[in-house]
């Protein structure tokens, strides 16, 4: 992030909304000065995201046209994303991930490594999980793409999404859209009886997945925060249909009380 000249100065006068924001964040006095020195105005506005109304995220139905001169080897593609068709002119080099994020404002799919190593860009193409960073947009014509934005039914979360919340299957959340798309696909693969390298005898179909099977099948999605145990638990709950208790719980009032130092 590039700090503006303005924000580099600790003496700069704050706008009313910025004052309000810092108040709400609980940053006052001297720490407010330090905070301002460390943060650019753009950074502060990022933290204000929860204050914005949800129509901030309303998606443009049509991607803005690019200046044809900025495209090399331009191609026309009709991208079918989450049941909607987007006619788009793309450079032959444009990956599906870049088309989603930069042209269609579908920023759920994340760019982690951009080399097919981390899985953050995982989407479903014709129902199968694939890496959008290694998929050229030009190869997606006539294919149905589902991104994490397309998994919800109206306002209802997909069961995998709900399970990730329940089991705390993330920390920073950056890999989560990829993890969730991957997990949704994994459940279908299990229904079809697909086997894996850890399957004892690949001649036998596997429909009930052990935790070990889930781990092997999710190895294409890296989580830098290391939320793997909770991710496996979340997937196992949806897969087995048996409610798994999260292996953590909120402290009760009594426990909180007991933890306070005596007066």
């Amino acid at each position: 992030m590039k700090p503006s000249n303005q924000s580099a100065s600790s003496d700069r006068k704050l706008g009313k909304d910025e004052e309000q924001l810092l108040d709400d964040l609980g940053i006052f006095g001297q720490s407010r000065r330090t905070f301002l020195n460390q943060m650019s105005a753009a950074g502060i506005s990022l933290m204000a995201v929860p204050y914005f109304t949800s129509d901030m995220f309303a998606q443009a139905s049509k991607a803005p046209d690019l200046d044809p001169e900025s495209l090399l080897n331009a191609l026309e593609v009709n991208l079918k994303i989450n049941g909607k068709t987007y006619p788009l002119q793309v450079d032959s080099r444009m990956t599906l991930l870049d088309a989603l994020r930069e042209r269609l404002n579908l920023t759920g799919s994340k760019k982690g490594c951009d080399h097919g190593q981390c899985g953050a860009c995982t989407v479903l193409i014709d129902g199968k999980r694939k890496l959008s960073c290694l998929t050229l947009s030009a190869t997606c014509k006539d294919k149905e793409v589902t991104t994490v934005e397309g998994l919800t039914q109206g306002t209802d979360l997909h069961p995998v999404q709900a399970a990730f919340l329940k089991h705390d299957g993330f920390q920073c959340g950056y890999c989560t859209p990829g993890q969730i798309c991957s997990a949704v696909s994994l459940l279908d693969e299990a229904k079809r009886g697909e086997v894996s390298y850890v399957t004892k005898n690949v001649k036998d179909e596997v429909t009930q997945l052990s935790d070990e099977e889930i781990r092997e099948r999710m190895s294409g999605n890296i989580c830098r925060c290391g939320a793997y145990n909770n991710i496996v638990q979340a997937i196992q709950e949806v897969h087995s249909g048996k409610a798994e208790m999260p292996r953590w719980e909120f402290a009760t009032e009594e426990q909180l009380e007991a933890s306070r130092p005596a007066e």
Partner: protein
Amino acid sequence: MRPFQFHSPSNAAEALQKHTKDQKTHYLGGGTNLIDLMKEDVERPDHLVEVADLPFKEISKTANGGLMLGATLNNTDTANHTDVRKNYPLLTMAMLSAATEQIRNMATNGGNILQRTRCPYYFETSMPCNKREPGSGCGALNGANGKSAIFGWSESCVATHPSDMCVALAALNAKVHVEKEDGSSRVIPFSEFHRLPGDQPEKDTTLEIGELITGIELPESQFPDHYYYYKVRERSSYAFALVSAAVGLKLSGNTITKAGLAIGKVAHKPWKLEKVEKFLAGKEATLENFEAAADLAFEDAQPLSKNAYKIELGKKTLVQALVRAAARS
């Protein structure tokens, strides 16, 4: 990534026509290797010819009791196909040890056997590499060669072939079916499909410009019961092998009547163990014989400065694979 023209032909003839036009033309299968290499500026094609959707997606029985795997079918569907799982479980196991579900869903069979080495000097454009830039030298020969070849390397290249699928295909004596621009076709025995580097390391295979892989043929199933693909790597999933072993055994009682063997990540091509196959035929499936077989397999190894460990590791890997294959009931 450098600019390129994208072509999406609707049939093989059209694709082949495009491929003869220009040396800097690449077929695009699943793209899991090629697009990555283009982003790294290692591959710089002027034209990409998409072949992933060409109609070679069937798995069909051949007249002589074998199986034909379509070149554009993806790795997941190939590995999980009932006929492959039941009759060629060694291939299923090897294919599923590779990469991740996302990558296997994208990768085509033809693309898998054409994938390039993962030698770090090939990927790093500031380093010399005869495979990437003929004449620039081999950085690995006296450099970071811990994962390089111990068999069949030359002064100009010590790279290894990274595919797991290919190790099983070598053990199973597969054949590669190729179509040419004039409509004719040819069949390449798997052992002659990949080549040793010699003084032309830029050429991985014996495939020519203007040829297109249409299928991979498996002979009649020989090892449906006693099989194992043992892959040793630095983590237990989603990593290339340090060494791997593909083993298929045919047993009569405890006597080996036939063996199909190959080891991976030790040479510029999957390393078929014909001599060891012959050695084991007629012998009892005992640990002693397996260890003798492993000694024989590695007797001609020529390690580089940092990869002598691959000999001991490779022997143990092969013995483990043999033990596990024989122990299956």
